[in-house]
């Protein structure tokens, strides 16, 4: 199985060599866990230097059936959801010279179940970029879609880290991410222009001087009233980022600046009503980073050591537009007849009090964050290791938007979204809490659906897109509308960033620690202080070990004690997190010519106050080449979230019948197993079975009635697909 190992290395080096984005610092800080790289990953980059037009891609044809059962479904509920699809992702790369490249990616998706509803399938373009390394390789640039990373406190994407994640899971997660143009790196998906300059060696003393400038558009303004159908956002938001850095004697010194702002003009081009408020958010972060790696000065030592540190200052301010009554005086010439004087012209005054668009400062916060990490890494007789210890302190008022938006969002129902529930509480739980986090992490549904009058959503004054009340809706209901297939997805990931006000409101993500209990917003999570340590060991690609320990605290206002004593009680909420993982390639250990990788990990996180949450994750997996082209993949994952003090109540229901509920215990389990057959070079057949169970225990309050209940769903998922990389 040496081929796999070698390919993995080639892929890594070629990825580094070709990453035109050249996200310098983010790369080293995002050192990915010893993760099994997908066998299905494209090899096109190997031929990257070929001039002219090239078409690569991946075609996948398959079927997926998810059969759900639950006592909480109602009698009429569908229990099965089927997908039968052919999905082709075409990557067109054009290289006019060896220096620059145009990259366009197109997706064709055919859903066979709706094949007769609509014959024509549109092609969706989902990646457009022009990248290059020009001026004698001194300048890298990206125009269009790009992935850019600065530092963990400025531009960064916090990623889910599951130690020793078996390949059967990792591949699913990558596929879900890929459908939203995301990947597993810590670079952020952006659209705009990125230019980076690298001097190379200067005067034999300075190894490198870098300067980078990034401009991107983060959100778009809705241009029409009824574009609620699309993912438009009623804000026009921009990023301007810049960084400089110097490397010499193994040390790195850098400064980063990120400025995000909402443009006011586009929002103001649309009238707002008397009850509307529009918020304009501005976030600025300046950071200084320092790094040192002994490798440069002591290249002969088998061990290298060093440090990475960053200090950041943030400024966040929000002002808002709203309609306020304002006194207005207007003057006009008037003529009146005055007794005894005659006609008199005077200046008449009239006052009015119209609603006028008014702007006021709303909130403002400045904060600081610092982290420093020491590392020792080396290679001593086949033993690769990396040990890191870090200290982190972030103010509660610190906010760095582009570093604080994880790509994992969760809370969606991916499979069997067509199910009906037997009572409104269960339905509300599925709407807010959503399906299990394991389902969100590993599954995604991509559909191409015919658009017709009934599924075109539009503004409130029209009942559908094509007709108002003056036309019978039936007129359009079965109308075939050529070329009007829509690509839809149910996916737990997003590349969108959260403004601070949005992040504050999204308490569910804070509550549901599916990504990380202690650092839900990555290293830039506000109000954290503590230490983190990690160890990664790799013995000759045969045995892998990872360990993580995080001890962090958060200031916490204990309202229960506060109410009793009458004086504010501010305590510390202590997070204790640890995880370890072990993997062994038995095939390599026993000197067989095949990979038999056995993996497992255990992770636990808890907090001492607030909701007293505790999460436990157990992972186990097997990736084995059985015989010839056959490989066996299996994975087991159990995830348990307990809220000892009960969750935060979620308000739901109708105005007449409101109710609250909180989930206090969630147990999830995913068992997956499958066979992968290599049909030919770069072509695979994959047969998989998965069993997903999700059990939520909750407490509810419906006015008079209070109680506890549970919602338990089991899904059996069968999938078969053929994947061809070309």
């Amino acid at each position: 199985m040496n081929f796999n190992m070698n390919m993995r290395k080639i892929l890594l080096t070629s990825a580094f060599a070709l990453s035109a984005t050249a996200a310098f610092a983010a790369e080293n800080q995002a050192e990915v866990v010893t993760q099994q790289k997908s066998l299905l990953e494209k090899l096109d980059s190997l031929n990257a230097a070929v001039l002219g037009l090239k078409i690569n891609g991946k075609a996948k044809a398959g079927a997926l059936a998810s059969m759900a059962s639950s006592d909480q479904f109602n009698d009429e509920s569908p229990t099965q959801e089927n997908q039968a699809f052919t999905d082709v992702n075409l990557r067109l790369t054009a290289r006019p010279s060896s220096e620059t490249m145009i990259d366009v990616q197109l997706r064709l998706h055919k859903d066979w179940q709706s094949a007769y509803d609509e014959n024509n399938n549109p092609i969706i373009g989902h990646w457009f970029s022009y990248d290059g390394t020009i001026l004698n390789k001194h300048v890298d640039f990206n125009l269009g879609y790009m992935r850019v990373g600065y530092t963990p406190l400025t531009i960064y994407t916090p990623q889910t880290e599951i130690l020793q994640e078996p390949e059967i899971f990792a591949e699913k997660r990558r596929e879900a991410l890929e459908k939203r143009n995301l990947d597993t790196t810590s670079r952020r998906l952006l659209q705009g222009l990125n230019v980076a300059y690298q001097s190379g060696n200067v005067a034999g003393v300075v190894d490198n001087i870098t300067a980078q400038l990034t401009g991107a558009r983060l959100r778009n303004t809705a241009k029409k009233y009824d574009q609620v159908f699309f993912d438009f956002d009623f804000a026009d938001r921009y990023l301007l980022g810049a960084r400089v850095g110097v490397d010499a004697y193994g040390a790195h010194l850098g400064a980063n600046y990120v400025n995000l702002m909402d443009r006011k003009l586009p929002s103001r081009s649309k009238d707002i009503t008397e009850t509307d408020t529009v918020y304009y958010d501005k976030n600025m972060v300046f950071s200084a980073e320092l790094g040192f790696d002994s490798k440069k000065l002591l290249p002969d030592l088998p061990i290298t050591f060093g440090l990475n540190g960053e200090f950041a200052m943030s400024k966040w301010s929000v002002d808002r537009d709203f309609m306020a009554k304002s006194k207005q005086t207007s003057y006009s010439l008037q003529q009146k007849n005055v007794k005894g004087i005659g006609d008199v012209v005077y200046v008449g005054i009239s006052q009015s009090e119209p609603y006028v668009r008014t702007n006021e400062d709303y909130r403002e916060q400045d904060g600081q964050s610092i982290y420093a990490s020491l590392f020792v890494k080396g290679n001593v007789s086949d033993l690769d290791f990396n040990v890191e210890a870090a200290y982190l302190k972030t103010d509660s008022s610190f906010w760095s938007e582009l570093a604080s938006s994880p790509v994992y969002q969760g809370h969606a129902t991916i499979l069997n979204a067509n199910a009906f529930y037997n009572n409104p509480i269960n339905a509300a739980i599925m709407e807010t809490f959503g399906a299990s986090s394991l389902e969100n992490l590993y599954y995604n549904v991509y559909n191409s659906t015919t658009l017709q009058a009934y599924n075109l959503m539009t503004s409130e004054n029209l009942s559908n897109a094509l007709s108002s009340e003056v036309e019978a809706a039936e007129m359009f209901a079965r109308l075939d509308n050529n070329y009007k297939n829509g690509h839809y997805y149910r996916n737990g990931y997003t590349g969108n960033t959260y403004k601070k006000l949005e992040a504050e409101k999204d308490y569910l993500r804070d509550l549901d620690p599916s990504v990380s209990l202690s650092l839900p917003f990555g290293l830039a999570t506000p109000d954290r202080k503590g230490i983190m340590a990690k160890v990664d060991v790799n013995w000759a690609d045969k045995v892998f070990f990872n360990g993580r320990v995080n001890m962090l605290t958060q200031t916490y206002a204990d309202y229960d004690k506060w109410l009793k004593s009458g004086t504010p009680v501010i305590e510390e909420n202590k997070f204790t997190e640890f995880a370890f993982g072990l993997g062994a390639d038995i095939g390599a250990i026993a000197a067989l010519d095949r990979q038999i990788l056995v993996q497992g990990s255990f992770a636990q996180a808890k907090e001492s106050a607030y909701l007293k949450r505790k999460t436990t994750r157990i992972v186990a997996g097997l990736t084995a080449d059985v015989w010839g082209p056959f490989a066996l993949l299996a994975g087991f994952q159990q995830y348990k979230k307990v809220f000892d003090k009960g969750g935060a109540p979620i308000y739901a229901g109708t105005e007449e019948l409101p109710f609250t509920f909180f989930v206090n215990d969630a147990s999830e389990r995913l068992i997956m197993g499958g066979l992968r057959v290599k049909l030919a070079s770069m072509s695979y057949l994959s047969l998989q079975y998965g069993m997903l169970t999700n059990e939520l225990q909750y407490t509810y309050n419906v006015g008079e009635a209070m109680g506890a209940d549970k919602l338990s769903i089991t899904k059996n998922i069968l999938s078969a697909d053929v994947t061809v990389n070309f």
Partner: protein
Amino acid sequence: MKKLHHYMMILLAGVLGACSSMSVDNSYEDSFPAGFSNREYVELHPFLLTLQIKDYVNDYNARLKKEVGISAYNVQVTQDSATLLGNIAVLQQIYLDPIYVGGTADGWDAGVQELVAIQTAKAAVAAGSATSADSATAKKTPALWTEVIPFNFIGVADDFTALKNMPIDSMAFSSQYVMFGRTHGWAYRACRPDEANNTARNDLPIKNAQATPAQKGEFVADMGLYCRDATGVDRLIIQ
């Protein structure tokens, strides 16, 4: 280098331009003769204040009408009229105040007499014991009422206090002088003792030129400035 110099010059020009004052002398200030004061001007022509107050009350009532709706407003008008007519003290204050109605004591007495007569007649009509003269009287609107009504805030019980607390916009007076008063030869201040024998405006040819223009619609602007002496005669200020 040449280019740099060029750019520097542009930059320098820009800086100079940005620093130099762009403000034009305030011509509006110049429109006032020396010693003009709003207070003095409106004292000489109190009806300007009266007109402003009437407008203010009218404006207030119109906004109230828009806010509460026409039917609710009409209900308020009926209630408010009854309140004001019942409150003779306030009615008298408004009637006698020179800024408001500016009525005389005799006028007030006559008005009250008429008011009482109308109210008695109305009572008789209501009781069914009205003579034909009574019915005719009952239909009349009291003259007092007609005069006071432009100063009545709908929905306000004590109109006199409300009127006293009303904000006065003095800018309206000064602009009236600039736009109308000055060219029409309105006095803007009291005469000083040494001006007591200055030519009266009535004796100047401009008086007739404005009163009876040579052609219809023709207007000759008065270029003079006038003060008013103790006897109320407007006299030319010698400049």
